[in-house]
């Protein structure tokens, strides 16, 4: 049995995000967004879940740019010639937080 790809790709606010697959708990589809429940208890929301990706090579977030971006990220990467922001499951950025105006309607996708 092969190991699943380590990253879950999703799009949120026009940006590609990558979440460690191991941190994922449950996925729920809540039109028009998708809710992701992490194992750590956090709940994220994505506009689109693109799927799993293995060819993610993390790169550190430049320190010189830290003063201009205070959210916690795990780094940066490129997927299919697009920049990807790597999510720290323990401290997801507010951009991925569930927005209150998107009510959860109960559908679940595993």
């Amino acid at each position, binding site marked *: 049995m092969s190991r699943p790809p380590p990253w879950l790709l999703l799009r949120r*606010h026009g940006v590609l995000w990558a979440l460690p697959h191991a941190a994922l708990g449950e996925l729920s589809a809540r039109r028009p967004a998708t809710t992701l429940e992490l194992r750590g208890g956090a709940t994220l929301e994505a506009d689109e879940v693109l799927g799993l990706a293995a060819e993610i090579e993390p790169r550190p977030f430049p320190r010189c740019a830290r003063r*201009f971006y205070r959210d916690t990220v795990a780094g940066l990467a490129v997927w299919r010639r697009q920049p990807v922001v790597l999510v720290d499951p323990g401290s997801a950025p507010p951009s991925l937080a569930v927005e209150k105006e998107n009510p959860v309607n109960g559908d679940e996708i595993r």
Partner: protein
Amino acid sequence: MLLSYPSMWDDEAFKALTVRAGDAWCAMPLPRVRRVIKSLKLHPLPGAGPEIAGLAEVDGEPLVILSLERLIEAPPGPAAEFPITLLVEVGGAAREVVGLAADQPGDIVYLVGSAIAGPSRGLIRGEARLGRGLVRVLDLAALGGED
């Protein structure tokens, strides 16, 4: 790969690349410049400050692109016909490669450190007369993060 650079801000002339950001012309030491790229597609980074123009991919590597106009706090200038992105090395001993978004490429000029005048504040080392105008000489080492 890091290059060995001559000592800056002494009386020797050094090559610099001039670019326009907003309505200000800037000059940065040429050894700090890795590449000039045109028409780089930027992706937004939600939650970032205005100094971050976005994220980009260059040669398979993710890059954070900073807005040079915001960094030097230049007033808005003429619209950029061919905006460029400079891949530069910032920081002191520990250098990082970031992108600087500018409006217009200039030329490669020779500057003398002693000709740089004015107070040094943040990224701006000072100002130097170049032709009939003044250019802001940038100290990219000041843009680095914590060593």
